[in-house]
């Protein structure tokens, strides 16, 4: 059996990649993908712990996270479409209406 540590390490790497994508990329869709990646990294960690502890709690959590992520994807993609229409750009630097 694969040791739990490996899953956790993979989860951490995915999460880190998600952060990097979120912080450094300019394309909104890439950022959005970074967020999804982080969510799934967390899911992986939950499942790994669930298996290691022999309890179903983690798996239930993962179901919830997937549901929230689906809702978030719907709202987020809606925002992205509107932004793309209004600004004719997907560059996050151009989305700065609140900036002084």
């Amino acid at each position: 059996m694969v040791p739990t540590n490996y899953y956790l390490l993979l989860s951490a790497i995915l999460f880190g990649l998600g952060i990097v994508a979120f912080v450094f990329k300019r394309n909104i869709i890439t950022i959005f993908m970074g967020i999804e990646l982080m969510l799934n990294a967390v899911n992986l960690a939950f499942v790994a712990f669930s298996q290691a502890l022999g309890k179903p709690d983690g798996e239930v959590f993962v179901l919830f996270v997937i549901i929230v992520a689906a809702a978030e994807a719907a709202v987020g993609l809606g925002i992205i479409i509107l932004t793309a229409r209004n600004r004719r750009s997907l560059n996050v630097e151009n989305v700065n209406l609140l900036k002084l």
Partner: protein
Amino acid sequence: MPTLLILNHLWIIPLLPLLGSAINGLLGWKWPNRIVHSVALGATGLSFACALEAVREFFASGQQFFRKEFFDWIVAGTFRAGFDLQFDQLTVVMVLVVTGVGFVIHIYSTGYMAHEEGYWRFFSYLNLFMFFMLILVLAANYSLLFVGWEGVGLCSYLLIGFYYLKKSATDAGKKAFIVNRIGDFGFMLGMFLLYRTFHSLDFQTLFDAASKPGVAIEPLGQFGTITIACLLLFMGATGKSAQLPLYVWLPDAMEGPTPVSALIHAATMVTAGVYVVARSHVLYMHTPTAMYVVAIVGCATAFFAATIGVVKSDIKKVLAYSTVSQLGYMFLACGVGAFGAGIFHLMTHAFFKALLFLSAGSVIHSMGGEQDMWKMGGLYSKIKITFWCMMIATIAIAGFFPFAAFFSKDAILFAAFNSEHGGKALYAVGLLAAVLTSFYMFRLIWLTFFGKNRYDEHHVHVHESPLNMTIPLMILAFLSLTGGWFALPALFGGKDYFSEFVAPVLGSGEIAGLENAHSLELTLSGVAMVAAALGLIVAWRMYAKDVRQGKSEGLHKILYNKYYVDELYQAAVVGPLVWISQNVLWKVVDVGVIDGAVNGIASGTTAAGDTARHQQSGNTRSYAVWVLVGVVVVFAIIFWPVLHPALFGGVR
């Protein structure tokens, strides 16, 4: 035992004017003049009547000293300052002068102020002044006396600045107040020192303690506790009674309405200093040094002020310097131990100087506000009543027999002549001042009433004042004539009733072991008469002819500019003070330190906010970085116990 109706309720005497003041002050503004002065005159008149009744009861009961504690004012530990009033022979004189002359001047004011704005305000202040002055003379301890002392100062300030739209008047008011403050500072220190030494500020306790045989008399030239206390009290007196070097406020105080000059700055308030010295005579008797200082300051002031009075052209200014000079005489009397004579002169001076001011007011009134004597002249036939009243006052102040000041001034000069240290010099200067007094007063008479008229007859319609102004003049003229007659028998080898009257309080003032004192006194009286006549003749020679105002140069210029004392004070005291206030206190301390601190805090906050604001960039990803930083920090804190040995393992 006769009932002591008023004496047992002595507070009624000062309370009545206070009530009058409060009523007029609160309600007077909507009343016509008639009601306002009815209230004011009623209050003062009733107060005068109560004073008379109190005096009657005082003598009827055969007491020498009456004292009653009405209520506690300040009690702290062993210290007690109570609302205690006392009544003795000295108080009798003072209370009658204050209420009597005050009442007469109130009557006069109804005529003089009739067309002025703020009629109610004037009478409210005047009544308030009467209240404080009566507190001052009735008080049985220094702390209550000080209440009156400060109160009359306040009223003086209010009344000098009565025409508050006039810059010079408000300036004069401030000057009076500030100069008096300097004196009051000394007075307070004196009180503290007395309390520290004798553990009481009550006159009776204090003077009893001071006159115990154990308390040594401090010889001349030695500055013991009592000497210093007396000198400090005298410092207060020089402020209030306009003596050198703090006299400068009194001539400026003439900016006030003339009845105020008569009541406050001639008859009553300015004599408060003399009263305090006389009241404290038990202390002063212990310290020849302080006595000597009092005598010299008084004598110097008498002469100094008289020389300035000689050249002044403003009728009220002449009288103001004359007042300073006459107050100097009173202090001279106190300084040579003749407290009775000082109080005697205080009383006669109250009559004739009030009369002089009121007559001058009547002249000014008839001239339509003109005060410059060089723009008067020839008024004699037009305002006869005023002229004759003023003439009587002038003869009285010059010291001709048998008018009031002849007796009182004589008593002073006689006492000065016989005093131990430098008596002859004091006498000589005093006599010289008497010559000058006679001179400047007759100069005033001639310039004002005789010669050609120097005013514009088309614009000035000279008219005699109404009855409510001339009757007070006549009353005071009568008193100026007869006020000195208490001492009349002394001239013929009899008793001086006045000094005998105040003797229980002030001591007899007899010069012991003096052979042929009576013939000496007669001689000195003769000399004084000659001196007065000399002043009269010189004034007549110089001013009886048609004169024009000459050019001012040389000595005349120095005198006319009051020896440049005001300029000296301006340069030595006021100037540096203003400079420090402006350049140090204002520009450095206020602007730099105080405003700097306040503005610094404000601009620091703004700068911090401005810096922080730029973190709110509106850039989503920068927020994400901050969130990340936050997460890292939170994790670091939570896992510190785990990380610490992991990172720095084995150090412990």
